[in-house]
């Protein structure tokens, strides 16, 4: 018997609930952080090479920008990941608390972003 349900789902037409967006953003930030590893290692190596290369990094505006995006992605990934660890412990599984913790993750990431922006510029 043929299944009468739709054979494909158009992801862009489905309004995803907030916890689903938190989940996919956790995944995307994770992939971006993975791709950033060689850049970070390269920068870290340059920072330890000599006082001159250290100074050159401190003076470059692109370092601040890179550091900003790196730290925001890292903070978000850490906070959302912490939420998943708590979910693993069956903590906050109800719809209400899952939505609340999602907002908490977004709120704390926003706070980190603002503090970081103030500190860097």
């Amino acid at each position: 018997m043929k299944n009468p349900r739709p054979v494909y789902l158009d992801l862009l037409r489905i309004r995803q609930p907030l916890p689903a967006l938190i989940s996919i953003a956790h995944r995307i930030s994770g992939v971006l952080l993975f791709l950033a590893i060689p850049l970070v290692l390269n920068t870290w190596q340059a920072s330890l090479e000599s006082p001159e290369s250290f100074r050159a990094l401190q003076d470059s505006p692109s370092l601040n920008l890179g550091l900003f995006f790196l730290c925001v992605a890292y903070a978000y990934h850490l906070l959302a990941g912490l939420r998943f660890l708590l979910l693993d412990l069956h903590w906050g599984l109800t719809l209400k608390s899952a939505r609340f913790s999602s907002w908490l993750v977004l709120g704390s990431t926003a706070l980190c972003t603002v503090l970081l922006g103030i500190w860097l510029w």
Partner: protein
Amino acid sequence: MVRRAIGGAHYGLRDWLAQRLSALIMPGYSLTLLGFVLTHQPMHYTDWQGLFQNQAVRFFTLLFALSLFVHAWVGVRDVLMDYVRASWLRLALQAATIAALLVYAMWTVTILWGVR
């Protein structure tokens, strides 16, 4: 007939656990490093160099890096398993990921023990 997918299915729990244990290790190091940076403003080269000359810092930095690489491996593997359906391409990308992470690990050791 049972058709086994390439990759098997015996390591799921171990990797799941490795992902979570490594996730628990990293925040402690991150916050300590953040604390160091915040208490050394403006940062001088000697502070930064001295930090990584410390043997304990080297050990915990390596622990952090290895946790990160294990964590990244499980995460990237999950992503590849979810989205790359052609086995040959998935295995090629997984092999490339492992190779990259091994190079990163050796790179980390080189940097840490190259600090003079």
